[in-house]
């Protein structure tokens, strides 16, 4: 076998610079995914394990306790007028997050069509929906805390309920919050036309390179994806 790249391999730097150079060199396993995209996927894979372990510990706590687990359907019910609607706020939060995923997907689409204005608009809309989600979560936390839910106990049943609730939704909410922050940063760069300037930055390799928007989108969809599992296992189960 001949090494096609051997004849033109550049001199290799040593030390930290060498680490960066080696990791950034031309050896690619993922032919259609750039380094940025592959690294985002690998980060998301590690994050998948973090959330999987949270959900597994929740499962262990719930299935090993002798005490009745609080009924999520009633705990998260909302009074509208006279009627009590189960899980209403959570359902609205789910729709908000799914909508934000929809606007994000369309932002990526417009980014590859190099429609700067539309991309920025849709990304700002995504960030707004994300912020709305975090706001509703803050409302939910406030409501539950005022009703006496603590990490070490609650009025309705198994003590582990509070600990798992705050841990899982708190970690997810943190992800959403950081997502909103990064969305605003990238959207603002899109709005200012940084991706069309031809200037090489850490987000942009060349003129018209909008891949950063897709990578940002991967993170955002992942946050939505995690919520699908939290919704199913924590709220509906």
């Amino acid at each position: 076998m001949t090494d096609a790249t051997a004849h033109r391999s550049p001199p290799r730097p040593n030390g930290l610079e060498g680490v960066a150079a080696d990791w950034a060199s031309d050896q690619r396993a993922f032919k259609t995914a750039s380094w940025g995209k592959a690294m985002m996927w690998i980060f998301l894979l590690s994050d998948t394990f973090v959330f999987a372990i949270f959900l597994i510990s929740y499962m262990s706590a719930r299935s090993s306790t002798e005490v009745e687990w609080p009924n999520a359907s009633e705990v998260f019910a909302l009074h509208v007028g006279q009627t009590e609607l189960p899980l209403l706020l959570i359902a609205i939060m789910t729709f908000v997050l799914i909508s934000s995923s929809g606007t994000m997907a369309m932002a990526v689409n417009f980014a590859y069509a190099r429609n700067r204005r539309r991309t920025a608009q849709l990304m700002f809309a995504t960030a707004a929906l994300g912020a709305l989600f975090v706001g509703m979560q803050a409302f939910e936390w406030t409501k539950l805390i005022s009703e006496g839910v603590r990490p070490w106990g609650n009025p309705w049943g198994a003590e582990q309920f509070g600990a798992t609730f705050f841990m899982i939704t708190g970690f997810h909410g943190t992800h959403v919050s950081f997502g909103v922050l990064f969305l605003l940063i990238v959207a603002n760069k899109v709005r200012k036309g940084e991706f069309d300037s031809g200037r090489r930055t850490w987000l942009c390799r060349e003129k018209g390179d909008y891949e950063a928007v897709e990578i940002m989108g991967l993170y955002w969809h992942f946050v939505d994806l995690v919520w699908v599992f939290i919704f199913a296992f924590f709220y509906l189960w």
Partner: protein
Amino acid sequence: MTHAAASDTHASHEGQAHPIRLYLTCWGFLFVLSAASYMVDYAQLQGALRWSLILIFMVLKAGLIVAVFMHMAWERLALVYAILLPPLAALVFMGIMLAESDYTLQSRATYLSGDPELAVAREGGHE
């Protein structure tokens, strides 16, 4: 750092431009599936029907998000396998912890309930 790799990637992910209708359809399905899983709770379905519906809607939603929104359907298998296979280890871990928590529950029932006869009765089967 070479630039060749970056630009040939760039050429290929221009292919990630899909008709906007695809995303809207996917979005619509996600809405319907979310509404359906909410209805499972609203209608107070119980037992095996409830668990299976929750799981089916969950898997369909997750699949749509990963395949369409995250473009996994259009990536090469090398990436798909690298990302989607490792989480199966979490499923194995889940199985182990399910057995473990069953044992913990039995121990609690046997040694901590204070009523030995009740403990023996629960030993048989519990849910």
